[in-house]
């Protein structure tokens, strides 16, 4: 057993360059549909709240992950304000090349929910961001019903 002849000349290394050209439609489902319709049409955030454990889901879900309670009829509007739960300043793009302008990305804990959004912070000096900073959503004028309808969050 074992390999007795090994490649030991770099010029003998060969490979095939392959690619996975796959595409998907990720359907939003009941919860996502409702949230993004509200964002697109009314610039509003909708969440679901579990009547048993009081966990408020944003992004919304139609089931509670703790209690397994059905949340299809437990919707509520929440503010489009929140606070920075954490933030980071991203310097490289997805190909590890330096970004022209570093981006400030935050996990924004939306008021009245146990969740929120991961998004950009705008109209702010990166040095002035801190955990706990109050921010609110800025929406695009032309919205399509997706997460990028939010342009960024800015300080209140």
């Amino acid at each position: 057993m074992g390999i007795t002849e090994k490649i030991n000349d770099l010029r003998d290394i060969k490979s095939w360059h392959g690619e996975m050209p796959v595409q998907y439609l990720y359907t939003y489902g009941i919860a996502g549909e409702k949230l993004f319709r509200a964002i697109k049409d009314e610039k509003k955030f909708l969440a679901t709240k579990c009547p048993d454990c009081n966990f408020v889901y944003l992004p919304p879900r139609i089931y509670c992950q703790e209690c397994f309670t059905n949340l299809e009829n437990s919707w509520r509007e929440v503010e489009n304000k929140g606070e920075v739960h954490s933030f980071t300043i991203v310097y490289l793009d997805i190909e590890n090349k330096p970004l022209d302008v570093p981006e400030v990305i935050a996990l924004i804990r939306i008021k009245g929910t146990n969740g929120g959004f991961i998004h950009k912070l705008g109209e702010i000096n990166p040095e002035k961001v801190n955990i706990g900073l109050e921010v609110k959503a800025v929406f695009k004028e032309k919205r399509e019903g997706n997460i990028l309808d939010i342009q960024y969050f800015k300080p209140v």
Partner: protein
Amino acid sequence: MRKAAIVGMGYTVPQTITPQLSYREMIFEAAVKAYENSGIHPKDVQSFICVSEDFLEGVSIFDEYVPDQLGANLKSVHTISADGIFAIISGFLQILTGKFDIVLVEAHSKASNILNPNEVIAFAQDPVYNQPLRLNPHYIAGLEMNRFLYSSGNTREQCAKVVVKNKKNALKNPLSAYPAKIEIEDVLNSALLSDPLRKMDKSQHADAACVFILASEKIAKSITPNPIWIKGAGWCSDDPSLETRNWDEAVYAKLSARQAYKMAGIQNPKQINLAEIDDSYSYKELQHLESMGLCRKGESGLLLEEGYFEHDGSLPVNISGGNLGAGFLFEASGAFKIVELILQLSKEAGCRQVKNASLGLAQVWRGVPTATGAVIILERED
């Protein structure tokens, strides 16, 4: 409870690239060694468990390509995702059924084959809420590190010291791809990736394959006089949503450790005298130590500075070099943590030998954007 043991293993040396072998040949090399070292023949093995993640191999249904290089053709092959520790746990569970006496477990990484690994990691994010931002996925570690420093009180310098310790430990480990003697300043001055995360805070990938032979209590001693017993195991998955999970603690690590301690009958984690844990990013080692109760909250950085986790400290951590020193081995990272534990528990760790190593813990995390991990506790035959 002594029901299943690891009775043999074989592995290739972690390398940054492996262009001279196909991934199947690399696994074959590890398998040959495992069979030779344990005296087991493929026909003796009743079940094979492999770990794979299709996007890491670049073949959907990758696990179709595992049997032949392991001697598993026309046998029962079971593939799981995540990591080698999960695979060992699956093998352990199969043996506990009483239906299997010898199980082979395999894990590997040929990450050098992936031309754009960031895309693979980015693709693991929620496609509706997170992927569209098209960010370098390590931003998630940047967010978590910032929150960790804020809520634990540990410092960037202490995180940098984890990198220094682990790369230094790797200098004594032939099974490592990134050993180095560096200073804290080298880490703090390395290029910013996603502030506060810098380039040197993040482990770099490596290739390797690892095969273990597991045996039931009934026959373990007939294969080796020194089986390494699986005393406890735990595995846990937290909220997949970044937006709603707890960012102040590695809850998956806390709960999987708790499950493992309970199974092992360990009342006080201080009984653990050797640990190989996830340090995919520098701060994760400190976060995992605290979450698993191996030290108190907020104390990990201070204890690190006092030498508590060094080779001659009270709890040697990542003597192998961890992911930072040995290389991030994707699904094989947990496997190589187990290799180090076995070498230590078997008193075969040479210049890395920890004197009183008798009860070891290995822990793994699936990496961003996941909140999943596993823990295994191993004990030598006395």
